[in-house]
């Protein structure tokens, strides 16, 4: 069978060709696996770091915000309250940072071999999932310790995990494509994440937000994700469906726009790196 490949100057604005990404799925899994298996090599604590990081953060948050500031935590012990939010938040922030630099740091691959460029941001979503899984184990340990039993909503947890994955991809795609042209993005992302954390109910409860501003606040997809995690694991109030779907809609738009933008830009990646 003769497969004719045509190489032409890029034109048009819709070149999704997602089937090609599927054909390269072996590369995607191997890149994820490379990140995972190289991650903690030559480190004594190894995957222990996946536990140490959230535990230290929880200790700090519990002391400062739970203890000193006395922030309400919806009737849940504060460490548990913070951990349930930290798990999706640290996944989101690490993935967003990873996705936004994925193309520039994969420059050596990009200029030497052809593969669908979407593989690069997709592959940086994977490695964090291992940490997230380990941290969930830690959280279930906490639940046992505090004697809390999650109800049926725990079955919906994978939905919220998936939502976190999709949200970090949606925003990351824009950032990584922009970062190729304007390296300023790489410098701005840490600040963006810092601000984003305070705009998300990580250390405080979303019920503290005045109802007047709630609609705006809910547009932040992290609100839905974190409240979803707490609902699934800690039996807190169910997130409001209307605002949840509104933020879902926004993420969907960001994602579709991000994929289109990325594919439009990718033809020039190798020229600009």
């Amino acid at each position: 069978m003769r497969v004719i490949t045509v190489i032409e100057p890029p034109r048009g604005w819709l070149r999704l060709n997602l089937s090609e990404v599927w054909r390269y799925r072996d590369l995607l899994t191997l890149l994820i696996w490379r990140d995972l298996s190289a991650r903690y090599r030559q480190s004594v604590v190894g995957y222990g770091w996946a536990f140490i990081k959230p535990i230290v953060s929880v200790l700090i948050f519990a002391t400062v915000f739970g203890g000193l500031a006395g922030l309400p935590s919806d009737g849940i012990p504060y460490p548990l309250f913070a951990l349930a939010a930290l798990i999706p938040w640290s996944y989101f922030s690490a993935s967003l940072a990873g996705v936004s630099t994925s193309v520039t740091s994969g420059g050596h691959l990009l200029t030497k071999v052809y593969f669908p460029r979407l593989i690069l941001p997709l592959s940086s979503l994977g490695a964090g999932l291992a940490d997230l899984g380990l941290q969930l184990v830690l959280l279930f340990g906490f639940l046992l310790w505090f004697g809390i039993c999650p109800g049926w909503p725990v079955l919906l947890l994978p939905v919220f995990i998936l939502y976190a994955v999709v949200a970090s991809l949606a925003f990351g795609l824009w950032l990584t494509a922009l970062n190729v042209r304007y390296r300023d993005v790489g410098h701005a992302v840490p600040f963006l994440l810092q601000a984003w954390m305070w705009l998300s109910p990580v250390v405080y409860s979303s019920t503290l937000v005045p109802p007047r501003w709630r609609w705006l606040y809910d547009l932040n997809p992290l609100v839905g994700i974190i409240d979803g995690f707490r609902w699934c694991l800690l039996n807190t109030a169910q997130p409001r469906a209307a605002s949840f779907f509104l933020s879902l809609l926004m993420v969907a738009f960001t994602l579709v726009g991000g994929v289109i933008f990325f594919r439009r830009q990718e033809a020039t990646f190798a020229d600009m790196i």
Partner: protein
Amino acid sequence: MPPIIRIHNLGKKYRLGETHAASLRDLVNSAVSRCFGRQSPLQSGLPNFRQADRDRFDDAGEFWALKELSLEIHPGEVVGIIGRNGAGKSTLLKILSNIVAPSTGRIELAGRVASLLEVGTGFHPELTGRENVYLNGTILGMTKSQVRRRFDEIVAFAGVDTFIDTPVKRYSSGMTVRLAFAVAAFLESEILIIDEVLAVGDAEFQRKCLGRMQAVSESGRTVLFVSHNMPSVRALTTRSIVLSQGKLRFDGATENAIDCYAQENSVTRSVAISVTDRDRPFDGLTGEVRFESLEVEQVAPYVEGSEVPILIGVRSQRPAERFIVGLTVFRRDESPVGSCFSPPLAPPPQDAVAQYRLTIPAQQLTPGSYHCAISLAEARSQGRRLQDSLTDVLSFEIEPGPLQSQGWPAAWGPIRFPEMRLLPAHPSVVPASFDSIAYLKS
């Protein structure tokens, strides 16, 4: 048979500056310049390209790395791509490999392309050899099961079987390269594109790679092969194309292509350098008869075995006698190689400059960079008198000839003496035998 690669009117342009990461500052700068009607810094500041390269800019200040290239390649052909650095070879390979997009034109490929533009792309030092083979194979476009099928062959070809489960960071650089080439050597594709990768590895491995590539081409696959190493181009290909200034200069038999490439190298003229204001190494030179300009005729390297023509301008302030030019050639490390003298030359007329064309008899110089010291002595009746002297002038380069496959280590010295002569055996010399050695020892 329809061609497997059809390239039509291919072009690739770069806007200067776009190759660098534009920052917001650039954006603001160019917006400000536009508002005030000034030229943007990108347009005003064309870097110092050689004159020939300036022709590759169009009116909009865009640089054409590749222009109006049309080419057809048939299945089973092995085509060499040769040209000087910057001629557009790598750009062509990158477009064919779908890494960068062309600006104009069209390519049709009737088959899968595997390209090896670099050895060991994506190797991760922390991972073992085995893990890297899988990773590198999939990066180059194989599926996991394809890698698994060829795994034993790859490891055997690389000769690293005992270390296959050791992290690659513990490998010697030679082992890494061998393993990386081995992965690429077993790619399954109809079109194989190879860029200069044979420059790595030791001589024995290079032979092995050449053998493997020969096998690939004999199996009916199409190979595009870029190299500066003319012997391997000659050994592997029958057809070659020569790229020059981003355009197709020649397409045909490899022998003729190599000739064309060598010719093209010799057409670049240099510019005479005025030396009137240069410092002289000695005091007490009258400067009455002195060098005005010095020039090596071509900028591009000379092929080993050729003479190096030079052009010198001499001015005399008074009626002068015949004079002799003395010249010492130095290696890059300032060690002298040897000297030569001109025959007595007729003096220039008073207050005028005369040009003399001389040769440096450099036929025995081996590849490398050289420069000269030059002096001028008037042959007066009371003996020679030094009139002018200059150091660190007339630099030129010698490159290996197209037929020279062997390298020339610096330790062998800068001179290749003529081939040794075999003399008829002298009747009184008894050939050395074990007996005579034993005799000498006792």
